[in-house]
């Protein structure tokens, strides 16, 4: 997702000379849109909002610069499916121009306050059942080992988790022909079968012919942490803790 790529961009930028500034140019945006459909949309979605990979429509609002986005496309993201690119600079600049055209307007990244120690305690009492940090925690929610979203994105994900379901974590209930109900997260699906992780974290494949029903839940398996469950102060503490997980240095092997 956006923020993850940003951190990488930041360190790359520190090492490489900045590329030429990206001019605003409608023709360039159109070229970028074509390139995006050909090379990026398989993972990032035709609208850039993410299919198997990250939402690219909130990069600048999370604090990215043109240069960081450029460098992330150029270098890829280590240890992820996002490859590096050896396309010419002008193609990458067109992609950046296109991405900027589909991004929200930037806002100022907020200053983080809060007590990380209390945030860590809160994490392991309220979040760690379903979220992993390194080897500890559950798998029913996204791995947060290197979580790097903006504060706004994280607040939204915690307060109103059902507003935007992460790819690969869409909740479903499978009803077998015998009437057994299997609650699970959808990992993959086609017309004839569905692949899920059930609530015991088992990877399971089902033929739809063996199912009476696939119920697509609209509410995330993650409970909404409203102010009744998580005070504003505790939220700040949790966000402060999560901020300590941001990769300060590239996750590159020696």
């Amino acid at each position: 997702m956006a923020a993850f790529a940003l951190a990488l961009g930041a360190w790359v930028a520190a090492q490489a000379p900045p590329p030429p500034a990206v001019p605003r140019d409608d023709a360039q945006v159109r070229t970028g849109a074509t390139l995006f459909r050909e090379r990026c949309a398989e993972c990032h979605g035709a609208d850039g909002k993410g299919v198997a990979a990250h939402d690219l429509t909130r990069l600048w609002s999370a604090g990215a610069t043109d240069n960081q986005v450029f460098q992330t496309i150029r270098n890829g993201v280590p240890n992820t499916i996002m490859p590096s690119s050896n396309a010419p600079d002008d193609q990458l600049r067109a992609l950046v121009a296109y991405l900027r055209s589909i991004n929200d307007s930037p806002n100022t990244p907020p200053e983080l306050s809060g007590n990380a120690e209390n945030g860590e305690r809160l994490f392991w009492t309220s979040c760690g059942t379903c979220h992993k940090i390194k080897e500890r925690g559950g798998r029913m929610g996204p791995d947060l080992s290197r979580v790097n979203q903006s504060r706004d994105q994280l607040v939204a994900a915690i307060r109103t988790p059902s507003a935007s379901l992460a790819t690969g974590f869409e909740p479903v209930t499978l009803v077998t022909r015998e009437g057994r109900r299997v609650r699970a997260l959808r990992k993959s699906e086609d017309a004839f079968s569905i692949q899920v992780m059930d609530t015991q974290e088992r990877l399971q494949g089902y033929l739809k012919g063996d199912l009476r029903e696939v119920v697509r839940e609209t509410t995330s398996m993650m409970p909404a942490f409203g102010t009744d469950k998580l005070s504003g102060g505790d939220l700040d503490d949790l966000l402060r803790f999560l901020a300590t997980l941001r990769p300060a240095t590239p996750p590159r092997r020696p």
Partner: protein
Amino acid sequence: MTVRRSLVLATLVAAQVASMPAQERPPSGVTYQDLLKGYSEPTTWASFSGDFSGQRHSPLRQITPENVHRLAARWTFQTGIVPRRGFEGTPLVVDGVMYLTGPFGSAWALDARTGRPFWRYRRDLPTDLTYGAISPVNRGFGILGDRLFMVTPDAHVVALDAKTGTVLWDTTMADYKIGYAATAAPLVIDGKVIAGISGGDFPTRGFLDAYDPATGARVWRFYTVPGPGEPGSDTWPGAESMTRGGGATWVTGSYDPDLNLLYWGTGNPNPLYYGDDRKGSNLHTASIIAVDAATGKLRWYHQFTPHDLHDWDSNHVPVLAEVAIGGQPRKVVMVANRNGFFYVFDRATGKLLVGKPYSDTTWARELDANGHPIVVNDGSKGCLPDQWGSTNYMPPSYDAARRLFFVTVRETCAEYRPVKETIVPGRISNSGTVVRDAERSYGVLRAIDPATVERKWEFKYPTPTMAGVMSTAAGVVFAGDNEGNFMAFDARSGKNLWFFPTGAPIWGAAPMTFMVDGRQHVVIGSGTSVTAFALPAEAGTPPPR
């Protein structure tokens, strides 16, 4: 089946999941006890060979010589990654999930019923790979608990979370920049991940490693080529030649839990074709090594090809079995070697029990008192088997009930032209070329009696093939060829019973089999794909147990 949306239910689910502590979830994954069961657990194929014995012989009986002609493809998985040679791995299957690795540090978890993905992994590789750039293949995972273990083209060994594909630890095996890479499926034993190294065609020194599955810390290392003063160092002209002596360990070995011994093949000496600067027998290259799994110490070895000049690595799956030799049952390890000879050893002592040619090689036809080939043609009396040998790393299989060893044999004709070259770290050190006569070369699937090396039957392929073999208790032998056919044969007669053109050479890959939903599946990799076959649902007979 209908589709609807539900809010209420999901809320309940959310509340229940949130209240379920992680530690109350049932234990999952593969235990060492599961690995010991090997082929006897037909829903599972949990290691490269499916069993510590390396026999690649399944007890499954649903697919038979009588019904195999009805075998049909159930699904194909496309990796989307164009390999240099082919898809060489053997997938694992545990609890209905297939775990497979592919070229360029890629891996997937698939639904074994449909081939649909749960997750995928792609390693970010450096751009200056050495052997890993020439051969970016990977041959599979090892598994323990919820952890998968694989090696990489940049010579690392990594552990992945089997549920999500995320990296749990990442340990450097060796420096890829001087020529190392890694391709073989790790072998998981009790509390250790055994991993071999590749890159023996570059100026590297081979080794076999054991890693802690929990942390990735290295437990021991055995260097296949000795250091100065160590046993075997007198078979090299000096220290410098040993530091780059080759002897890689790039095919998964076998394991005897009772003796706690690992059996592993070692590769060619380096440089490949020019040997005057490495005079001596060059231990322990082109050998089988029996290594104590507790300590990493060498228990015994046998060098198949002393001072090899033909790139005849001995990287094969050693096959463990009980075989009657001269009427006496012996616990043995068997190797059909790249040099054209079939060997049977007592696996406790390393005593050579049988050693005879299983191919038409003219290089040697007999072994001397030390078990070394008596070379009768060094190339001056006509062509020799080519540098890929009489067989290669493609796994064979062994049917103990029928006492038949099934092996893909390459009958080839080549001329070697060695050249003295400067050895440069990070550059391949062939030191010569090989000219092959394709017209006089072919492949053959051969069934041999391991006690006598008598050929019981054979099936000829148009060209030399690199496909592996699997056999089953029902009497079906599955094999492949260089033209891309995946085939089934009658184990007794060698009669071809079925074939399926996969569209790309079956190269290095061997079949595996497992039960899911009461149906026996057979899987083969080819080109950019992996395909699963089964009988039509109505044709199936009940599972064998």
